[in-house]
C-alpha cells in the first residue's frame, strides 16, 4: 500500500556513483549508436582516406618525390588520419545530440538528475572514441601503402586525444545551437573542410608564399596536423609544445562554453 510513500531511506549509492552510471550509460549508448550504423559512421571515412592514399599518395605522390626527407605518401599519412579523426569526432557528437534533440528524446536526459558534467563528458567521450577508432583504422589502412615510422608515441597519443576532444566539444556546441538538419552540416562544410584542406594535410606550409604561410598560422588545424606529424617523423612547421598548449586552451574554452550553454538551457529549454 505504501510502496510509493516518501521515506528517508539511506541512499545506497553515492552521488558520484550515480553520476558515473549516467556517464557510462551515455557512452554505452553512443558506442552502440555508431557501431549499429557502422556503414554510415566507420566505413565512409576509411574509403575516402583510402582514395586519398591511392590518388594523392600513389599516383600523384610518386611524381612529387620527398618532402622534408619523407616520401609524399608517408608525409600525408598523419594529416589524413587527423582529418578522419576531426570529421568523425565532430560529426558523431553533432549528429547524435541533434538527433535526440530533434526527436525530443533528450527530455529523457533532462528530466533525470544527470549532471551537465555527465552529459558533456558522456557525449564528448562518444565522439573521442569514434574519432580515435576511425583514426586507428585509417592508420592501419595506410600500412598497405607505406611504412610510417613512429618516433614519439606519446606525442601521437596527446595530439589524437586532444584533437578528438576539441572537435567533439565543438560538435556539441554546434548541436546545441542547431535548430534544423541544415544547421548540422553548415559548420563541417563551410568551416571544417576548408580549414582541414588548408591545414597542411597535403603540404608543408614552407612551400607556400610568405603571406599565405602567415595566414595559415591562424588555422588551428595546422597545429594539430603538424604536432601529430611530429610524433611520426619528428617534422613540424610549428612549435609542438605551443601546439599542445594551444589545444589545451581551446579544450578549456570549449568545455566552459558547453557548460555555460547547457546551464542556460540554450536550444533545449524554453
Amino acid at each position, binding site marked *: *500500500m505504501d510502496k*510509493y510513500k516518501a521515506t528517508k531511506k539511506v541512499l545506497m549509492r553515492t552521488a558520484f556513483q550515480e553520476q558515473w552510471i*549516467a556517464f557510462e550509460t551515455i557512452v554505452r549508448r553512443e558506442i552502440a549508436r555508431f557501431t549499429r550504423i557502422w556503414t554510415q559512421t566507420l566505413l565512409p571515412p576509411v574509403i575516402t582516406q583510402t582514395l586519398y592514399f591511392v590518388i594523392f599518395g600513389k599516383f600523384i605522390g610518386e611524381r612529387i618525390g620527398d618532402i622534408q626527407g619523407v616520401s609524399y605518401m608517408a608525409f600525408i599519412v598523419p594529416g589524413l588520419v587527423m582529418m578522419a579523426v576531426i570529421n568523425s569526432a565532430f560529426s558523431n557528437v553533432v549528429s547524435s545530440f541533434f538527433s*535526440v534533440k530533434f526527436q525530443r*528524446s533528450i527530455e529523457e536526459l533532462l528530466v*533525470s538528475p544527470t549532471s551537465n558534467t555527465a552529459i558533456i563528458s558522456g557525449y564528448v567521450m562518444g565522439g573521442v572514441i569514434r574519432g580515435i577508432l576511425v583514426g586507428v583504422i585509417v592508420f592501419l589502412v595506410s600500412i598497405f601503402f607505406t611504412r610510417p615510422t613512429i618516433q614519439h608515441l606519446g606525442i601521437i597519443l596527446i595530439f589524437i586525444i586532444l584533437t578528438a576532444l576539441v572537435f567533439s566539444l565543438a560538435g556539441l556546441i554546434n548541436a546545441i545551437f542547431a535548430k534544423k538538419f541544415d544547421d548540422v552540416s553548415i559548420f563541417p562544410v563551410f568551416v571544417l573542410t576548408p580549414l582541414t584542406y588548408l591545414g597542411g594535410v597535403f603540404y608543408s606550409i614552407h612551400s607556400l608564399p610568405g603571406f599565405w604561410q602567415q595566414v595559415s598560422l591562424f588555422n588551428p588545424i595546422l597545429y594539430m596536423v603538424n604536432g601529430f606529424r611530429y610524433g611520426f617523423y619528428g617534422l613540424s612547421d610549428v612549435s609542438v609544445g605551443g601546439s599542445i598548449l594551444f589545444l589545451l586552451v581551446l579544450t578549456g574554452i570549449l568545455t566552459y562554453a558547453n557548460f555555460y550553454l547547457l546551464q542556460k538551457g540554450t536550444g533545449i*529549454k*524554453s
Partner: protein
Amino acid sequence: MKAIEIKNLTKVYANGTQALKNVDLEVVEGDFFALLGANGAGKTTIIGIVTDLVKKTSGEVKILGCDIERDFSKAKKFIGVVPQEINLNIFERVIDILVTQAGYFGIPRREASVQAEMLLKRLGLWEKRFGVPRTLSGGMKRRLMIARALIHKPKVLFLDEPTAGVDVEIRHEMWKYLRELNGEGLTILLTTHYLEEVEQMCRNAAIIKGGEIIMCNSVKKLVQFMDTEVYVVSVQQTKDVSSLQHFKPKVLDETTLEVELSRQETIHDFVLALTKTGMIMTDIRPKGHRLEKLFLEVLNK
C-alpha cells in the same frame, strides 16, 4: 505531506507570452489530482517547469519538500513524467529505452533490467521488448512512456494527456493500471480532456485558465458547484410533456427524454410528476459530463 507544492509560479516565454501568473497549487501525497484547462491554459508549462524542461521566471516548486532548484537531484528522483507528445528515441529498442532511462537516474543495468521486465510485463509490452518504437501502435507507445516514467520508482507521476489519441479499450486499461499505482501510494497529477474519467478517477482537481488557477477543490465539491444535473430518462412511450416544463424536458426520441433537476429537487419529485403524465419510466441515469459542463461554464465566464 505535500507531494507537490507550487508557490507564486510565473512563466513569461521569450516571445513575451505570459503562460503562468502567480500559480499556487498543492497536491497531497497519495492524491490522484487532475489539472484541467483548455489548450494553452498553462497545464503543460506547469509540468514542464516541475520536470525541468521549461525554465521558470519566478516562484517556487517543491516535490515532497525538495526544492526543484536547490535540491534538484533528489527532487528529480521523486518525479516520473509522461509527456503529451511522443518523445521516444525511434532508433532504440524498447528494453534499451528503459534501461538507458534508468541509467540516467544512476541505476545499474542489472537492477534496471529486473525493473524493466516487471514493467513491460505489467504493461503488456514484454513481447515487444526487442522492437523499436516505430513498430509499436500508438497505445503501446503511450504505455512504453508510462513504463519509462516508472523505471526509477518515482513517488510523484505527472501525466500530460496520456490517453490522447488512445482507443477506448486501451484507455480503460491504462486508467485501471494508474488506479492500481495510485492505490499503491503513488501520487498522480494528470492533465486530460476526458472529463468524465476525471470524475470517476481523480479525488481533487484544479481548473486553470489563462495561466491562473481559477478553481481548486475535490472533484465531488467541484461537481456540487453545478446548480443542476441532467438526467436521461427512458420511458415506454413519450407523451405530452407540458406538465413537466419545470424540469426543462427535451424529448430525444419516442422512448427517451432529458430533464434537468435542480440541487433542491429529488429524483422522487420528478418520478411523481412523470407518473402524473401517464408515462411509464423504465430507466433513469445521470447524463454524466457534469464536470465538462462546469468546466465550460467556468471557462466561458
